[in-house]
């Protein structure tokens, strides 16, 4: 049974026109900013540290720790990542369109805590309505006196610019996003330096946080980090939004308490996914976005705790997307489509990713279309091993890398998982010269 807790980031989404300043103010909006500005910066940071808020973008790095890693130099920048593009992930899209002021308030509080006088919200270019709502929110927030000079008479001043992307999955990677924000091609930066906290935007120390992460900040400031940490479990605090997609009765984005709930709750709870469509059987599910290793039905009772999903499960909750495949789904076709995505979105800097993704896509396509050869199964694993050395089934976390950014090791999971779980299905494709699912 899903635990019943009051939602945090989605609590206003069903309100009437929740994106307006009026609606936000009537729910106590910008009260958290007012409170934060009366606190010393270190205390705001300490509350977020106590909350143990793990980044909600995909990497799951503790937000408080990220802030405290900033190199001591002036200026520092804050960049909010709203470039949500991971296949079947659609939670930030909702937050941007329906509660932009919550993101703005979280951003302003964070800017105050880290001492940034300039913040950017990078919104995926395709989100036209989201951009309109976000820019309007900044206009109205400025008029209300919460952006600009000497906010609430505190002496703190900050500007906030909404920046549009232009269509590139790779810009969700924080260093590629910074390149894009600098007006360049979205090429992830060579490491080291490992963190933008040392060298980020324009070479200055920079915090990059996800939209959902920012949306949690006002609640944490108002209610305290301990109240947030009291939700969930010790290793998985608070709530999180999950986008449940694929063959379920109620695809949608749902906020649930972490740690105490399971993937089964997300898929089968009548208030959440509502079960597999048409009474079919669940064949497998992708637990954390296209880049994650797949789980079979025996893993449905895994709790929503990133440390367990990685440690015991060898996969990740990643972007918070759960894709349900039922027994009418062809595993080869599903995996092929994900590989094709990575091939298209590879930025082309690193050979294993650029070439490997193309080879995998071609081999998968020929198997699916009935032209595969028995030795192709070995060939697929060999190419995967060249992209992510040692990759195997059952999977282990984290995968090894041969590339600048994590897009490389994101390519093998759909191939290795589908081959590991449904090898027979591949063999039928090869032997019968076609897809048994038609």
């Amino acid at each position: 049974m899903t635990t019943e807790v009051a939602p945090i980031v989605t609590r206003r989404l069903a309100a009437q026109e929740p994106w307006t300043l009026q609606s936000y103010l009537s729910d106590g909006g910008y009260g958290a900013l007012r409170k934060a500005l009366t606190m010393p910066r270190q205390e705001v940071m300490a509350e977020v540290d106590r909350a143990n808020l793990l980044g909600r973008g995909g990497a799951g790095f503790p937000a408080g720790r990220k802030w405290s890693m900033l190199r001591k130099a002036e200026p520092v920048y804050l960049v909010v990542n709203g470039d949500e593009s991971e296949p079947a992930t659609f939670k930030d899209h909702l937050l941007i369109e329906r509660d932009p002021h919550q993101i703005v308030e979280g951003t302003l509080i964070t800017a105050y805590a880290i001492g940034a006088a300039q913040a950017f919200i990078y919104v995926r270019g395709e989100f036209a309505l989201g951009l309109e709502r976000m820019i309007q929110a900044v206009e109205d927030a400025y008029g209300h006196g919460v952006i600009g000079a000497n906010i609430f008479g505190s002496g703190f001043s900050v500007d906030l610019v909404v920046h549009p992307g232009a269509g590139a999955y790779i810009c969700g990677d924080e260093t590629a996003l910074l390149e894009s924000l600098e007006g360049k091609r979205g090429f992830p930066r060579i490491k080291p330096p490992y963190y933008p906290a040392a060298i980020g935007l324009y070479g200055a120390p920079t915090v990059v946080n996800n939209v959902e992460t920012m949306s949690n900040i006002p609640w944490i400031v108002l209610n305290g980090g301990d109240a947030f940490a009291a939700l969930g479990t010790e290793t998985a605090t608070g709530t999180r939004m999950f986008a449940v997609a694929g063959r379920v009765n109620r695809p949608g984005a749902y906020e649930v308490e972490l740690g105490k709930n399971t993937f089964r709750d997300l898929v089968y709870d009548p208030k959440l996914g509502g079960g597999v469509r048409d009474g079919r059987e669940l064949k497998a599910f992708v637990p954390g976005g296209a880049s994650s290793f797949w789980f079979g039905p025996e893993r449905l009772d895994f709790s929503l705790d990133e440390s367990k999903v990685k440690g015991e499960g060898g996969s990740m909750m990643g972007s918070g997307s759960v894709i349900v495949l039922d027994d009418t789904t062809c595993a080869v076709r599903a995996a092929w489509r994900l590989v094709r995505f990575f091939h298209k979105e590879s930025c082309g800097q690193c050979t294993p990713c650029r070439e490997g993704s193309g080879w995998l896509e071609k081999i998968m396509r020929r198997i699916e279309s009935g032209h595969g050869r028995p030795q192709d199964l070995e060939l697929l694993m060999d190419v995967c091993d060249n992209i992510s050395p040692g990759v195997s089934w059952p999977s282990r976390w984290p995968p090894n890398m041969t590339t600048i950014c994590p897009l490389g090791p994101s390519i093998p999971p759909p191939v290795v998982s589908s081959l590991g779980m449904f090898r027979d299905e591949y063999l039928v494709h090869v032997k019968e010269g076609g897809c048994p699912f038609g």
Partner: protein
Amino acid sequence: MARLTPENVQRARDTISLYPVARSALIPLLHMAQEQDGWLSEEAMVHVAELLELTPAEVYGTASFYDMLFTEPVGRYLVSICTNIACLLEGAYELLEHAASTLGVRPGSTTPDELFTLEEVECIADCGRAPCLAVNWRFFGDVTPDGFDRLVARLRAGELSDEVPPHGTLSRVRRTVGLPARAEGGRERR
């Protein structure tokens, strides 16, 4: 199909003023040029380069990286059909095939009347309503083949011109706050 209009040059200068480093305004300026002409002409990109003190190659290098920026003309309506995993499971390829037959063009091409460009795209983050598509980045969900034909008919009849602005227009809300103060007539007060 030309350089930016005087009004857009002013908008461009305002946008540049928001950033600590001018080049950061490159993608917003390219969107602006695309809003003006529906696509990015060479003259527009050269003008953007002048405004940012970049070389035309630097501008083209960035423009050519991003899927939303077109350096060739596209139709008034860019129809972007998602075929990624969540939509695939709900018949996206069948929808794409149907769309190609309704519009009479292959994905990646434009109708002879220059009204529609059809393209297959990656996940557009509207998977709760799969299969989904966007027209000039305005989203439509749970699209059936019949629903697609009705949508096309309404676009042709101009019934959706409020909801769906011409290709290139992203945000119809423009930033007005925190810009450099100006005297009457839009001239900068330096």
